[in-house]
């Protein structure tokens, strides 16, 4: 037989559309059905078919429109009711879905899919009895389908009827041995029945079939502890481990070789890079003239740290209060680059303070007398554990960072904020160090050295902080980094940067790009040979641009910054080119986790 596609034939397009649809080629299928409809505008079949494909694609409104059209063209046609119901169900409109299924079943009493789908709708409405009834009807009409068994099992499981659930899952698995979710849920049912070995076997099978059993369990119960609490019994350790989220690693180890404990081994590249960085320049602790430290331990923070209203009241009650109320920083609220006022004040009741000279303060502290007494230490109950002569370290220029942070968050403070022990302080006038310490190289090195490699917060630890290597740079290079730190301090305070208005998105990208420029210079500082071998230079081209220091910019500093951004992001500018291709340098890829 010889036939050819005759382009004017609606049936041909409909049929080919079905072929495409069955192969999952949704777009081609839709195109064909559309063509068929164009050729025969009252072609209910093609409308229904296109609706089905739209639903498969997740375009439910279009699916509903098409099915409605098919119904309108041929009101006795059951399929589009069922398909429209499915689309309503996908949209979460279960009542309308059920109405459509009712209609479909009325028109075609042995319509298996409609029963099954109505079961799903009831199921999602958590009307388990009705759902089970519909699934059973579908099974009665066609016992070869595994879906109704699986879902009836789910309904039983949710009702707490574990034996029936297990029976249904087993039937579903018999009909389709590759049905991973059935193993997973049967495993859950066994768990509820404390059949540990069977549970373990099923969970393992589910995992082998590609099911993320941890996520599935998390969706149902949050975690094993919650499950145990709900059920009132303990789960054996080995199963517990199977169902517990492993800690995610902050930096990939760059090698998929496992050691004897099946943990990924560190690649020599990582070990060598860490060693190389460690041997660069001078450790921060040695480089600094003054030792870094944490802020004051203000335990019972509510007693010593007050808001603006309390501060004003204290000063109004007695003017002497103003002398020991100091502007204060919480570590948690710090952002990069610039330490902003947080509208908090510290009652600086240092050791040996003549507390009676500050009657309003004393009265305030007396409200907390009991808890203050419980503190350990040598100070009086109304004192902080710090002497007056230590206060200078707050007043001099310094870098501050939170004691817990996700990414390097150093800020420059030249306003003399006092800090609690949620802050780590580095007294220095060399503000370029802020650029160095906020870089990814330093974050990578610090996380590696202090062995904090999981995705959790990094914790500031003075011993490790002081080991951060400070590369040897010329004063010009330091000044260049410092220039950008100054730009960033300025930008961080600008309203357009702090807004969320997308009209100013490019201003915020400028901030990100300037950070990236510092990043590039810091890479060059630590890894000059590697970068230069690959012809990547940042210091020289940036130096060539002769950018003005922030304080020398006349007029509108913001528009001057935007001009600098535009200049340095121009696609042929060597700064832009070298930054864009920086990650062709292998250590950069290791540090940025791009291996």
């Amino acid at each position, binding site marked *: *037989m*010889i*036939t*050819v*596609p*005759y382009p004017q*034939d609606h*049936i*041909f397009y*409909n*049929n080919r559309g*079905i*072929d495409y649809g069955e192969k999952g080629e949704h*777009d*081609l299928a*839709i*195109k064909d059905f*559309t063509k068929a409809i164009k050729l025969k505008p009252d072609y209910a*079949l093609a409308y229904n*078919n296109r609706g089905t494909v739209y639903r498969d694609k997740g375009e439910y409104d*279009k699916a509903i*429109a098409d099915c409605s059209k098919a119904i309108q063209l041929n009101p006795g046609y059951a399929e589009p009711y069922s398909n429209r119901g499915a689309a309503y169900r996908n949209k979460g409109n279960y009542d309308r879905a059920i109405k459509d299924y009712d209609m479909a079943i009325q028109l075609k009493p042995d319509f298996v899919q409609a029963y099954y789908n109505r079961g799903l709708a009831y199921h999602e409405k958590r009307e388990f009895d009705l759902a089970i009834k519909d699934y059973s009807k579908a099974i009665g009409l066609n016992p070869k389908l595994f879906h109704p068994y699986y879902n009836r099992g789910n309904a039983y499981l949710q009702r707490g009827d574990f034996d029936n659930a297990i029976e249904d899952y087993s039937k579903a698995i018999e009909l389709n041995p590759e049905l991973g979710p059935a193993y997973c849920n049967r495993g859950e049912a066994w768990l509820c029945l404390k059949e540990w070995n069977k549970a373990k076997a099923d969970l393992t099978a589910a995992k082998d079939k590609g099911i993320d059993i941890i*996520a599935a369990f*998390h969706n149902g119960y*949050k975690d094993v502890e919650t499950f145990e609490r709900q059920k009132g019994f303990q789960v054996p350790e080995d199963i517990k481990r199977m169902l517990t989220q492993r800690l995610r690693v902050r930096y*990939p180890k*760059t090698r*998929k070789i496992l050691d004897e404990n099946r943990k990924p081994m560190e690649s020599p590249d990582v070990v060598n890079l860490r060693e190389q960085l460690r041997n660069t320049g001078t450790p921060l602790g040695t480089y600094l003239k003054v030792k870094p430290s944490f802020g004051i331990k203000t335990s019972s923070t509510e007693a010593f740290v007050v808001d603006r209203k309390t501060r004003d009241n204290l000063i109004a009650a007695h003017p002497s209060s103003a002398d020991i109320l100091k502007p204060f920083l919480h570590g948690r609220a710090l952002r990069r680059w610039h330490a902003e006022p947080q509208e908090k004040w510290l009652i600086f009741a240092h050791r040996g303070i003549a507390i009676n000279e500050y009657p309003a303060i004393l009265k305030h502290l007396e409200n907390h007398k009991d808890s203050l007494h419980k503190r350990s230490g040598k100070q009086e109950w109304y004192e902080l554990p710090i002497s007056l002569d230590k206060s200078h370290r707050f007043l001099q220029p310094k870098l501050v960072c939170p004691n817990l942070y*996700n990414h390097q968050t150093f800020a420059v403070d030249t306003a003399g904020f006092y800090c609690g022990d949620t802050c780590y302080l580095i007294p220095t006038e060399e503000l370029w160090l802020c650029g160095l310490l906020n870089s990814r190289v330093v974050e990578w090195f610090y996380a590696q050295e202090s062995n904090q490699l999981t995705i959790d917060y990094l914790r500031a630890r003075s011993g490790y902080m002081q080991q951060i290597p400070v590369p040897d740079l010329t004063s010009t290079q330091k000044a260049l980094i410092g220039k950008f730190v100054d730009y960033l301090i300025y930008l961080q305070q600008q309203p357009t940067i702090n807004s*969320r208005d*997308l009209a100013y*998105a*490019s201003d*915020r*990208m400028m*901030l*990100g*790009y300037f*950070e*990236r420029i510092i990043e590039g210079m810091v890479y060059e500082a630590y890894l000059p040979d590697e970068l230069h071998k*690959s012809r990547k230079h940042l210091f020289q081209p940036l130096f060539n641009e002769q950018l003005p220091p922030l304080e020398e910019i006349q007029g509108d500093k913001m528009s001057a910054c935007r001009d600098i951004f535009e200049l340095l*992001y121009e*696609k*042929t500018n060597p700064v*832009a*080119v070298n*930054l*864009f*291709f*920086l*990650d*062709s*340098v*292998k250590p950069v*890829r290791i540090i*940025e*986790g*791009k*291996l």
Partner: protein
Amino acid sequence: MRITEIELKNFRAFPRPYHIDLHKAGKNLIVYGENGSGKSSLYLALKFFLESGVDSDDADNKDANFETHQNIFIEDAGQIKLSLRAHQNAKMDTYEWSSDVKETSDDLIIEASKAKGFLDYKDLLETHYLHHKNPVVNVFDLLVKTLLTNTVSRRTDRSLVEDWTSVQPPFPRRGATTQITSLERRVENFNDELASRLEMLQTKASEILQKFRYNVAIDLDFQGITYNSNDKTLDNQEIFLTVKYFDKDIPEHHRFLNEAKLSAIAIAIYFSSILLQPESELKILALDDVLIGLDMSNRLPVLDVLDEDFADYQIFLTTYDKAWYEIVKQRTAHGGKWKAVEFYFGRTDEYEIPVYVEDKAYLDKAREYLDANDYKACAIYLRTAFEVMIEEFCEAKRLPVRYRQNRDKLDSQDFWDPIKVENQKSGILDQSLIRDIELYRTRILNPLSHTTITNIPKKEIEDAIEAVERLKIALQGQTLHLAINQPIEYN
């Protein structure tokens, strides 16, 4: 820096060694090929070669692993070799990627990969349905998941698609404030990068559209995605595309935006995204069948854009549209910047191989292999020549050909039969030619006979070549009419 030679062996559709010479100048390449003929394998060879330089830690990314692309039944280990020259007189460097050798970790290749442009027709399929019935056209998915995947964020130095992945589920539990804040920050980063990028793109893309001869400007309206922590959903995944004639809105612009125009806009946006970023030394732009979505009148201006805006790039175009291929070939014939090649599909008893022909000389190729005593290769080229010839004839003369769901399954019988039927009416072929062809069709031109082909005397193969040549002459310049059978409806 340009590619001057490409060598492929046991890579996807290429079981045997293939060598494509792009000459010292590193010419651009236009490839014609049927589906399954290996043209997409060439596209993928280039793409994966460039991308293989960076070791991926992502276990799902198997494409970076050469073994994935090898046919394990072929003992010969596979490889891809690219030879590069900085300029015509520069020394040639060859880089190899195979299971054993990986010379692609070189900066040059890694950078070429980051700046490259690779777009295939599947990427643009979505444009065909975007406008359907909708008064507004939402191009969010098209842009984020396809066209802007190469775009690198200035803040995170990650591609937009990586930034997009970083805001995907699993979402934090309700009440997990720290994780939610951190997710929201990633969402803001994503929004900022995309919003500021779209601003640059719409200007550049409008410029390019003008060059495509669409006298319009596009506007991409993006209000930012938002994370809804109650429903755990990412809302407002919307970028609305509108089109203006200069400064005037086109009232029913969704009618204006037909498939071809949307394809053109998509291509313009893709080109802009590449042109806005820094260029690597080795600049590759590969377009696998993407231009066929455009109207013919707009395809030619695209060639001009490639010529002007991508002058420094080495361009690889592939197409299954023969007419378009011929036009490009003609247009690019002078100037010596382009090379045109054709791929045909060959089958042997062992495996399917693409038959690679530079400018249709497959009969000559068959003779070449005959002279080299490689009967097997000779037979493949001869059969390809025969199949292409009769298929083209049926197509050109609109002869009714048996309908097969899968066009690849059509074989020479399917084309030869209608020619014989037609011949009973018009008598264009003499009976002795038909007898010869029938004879050689079973002995030589049949893919299943190749196991024994070495036993066939050389003379007989020569006669077969001659018969096909006679057929070629006989088929030239004939005209016939169409007959139609009614297809059957099913559901």
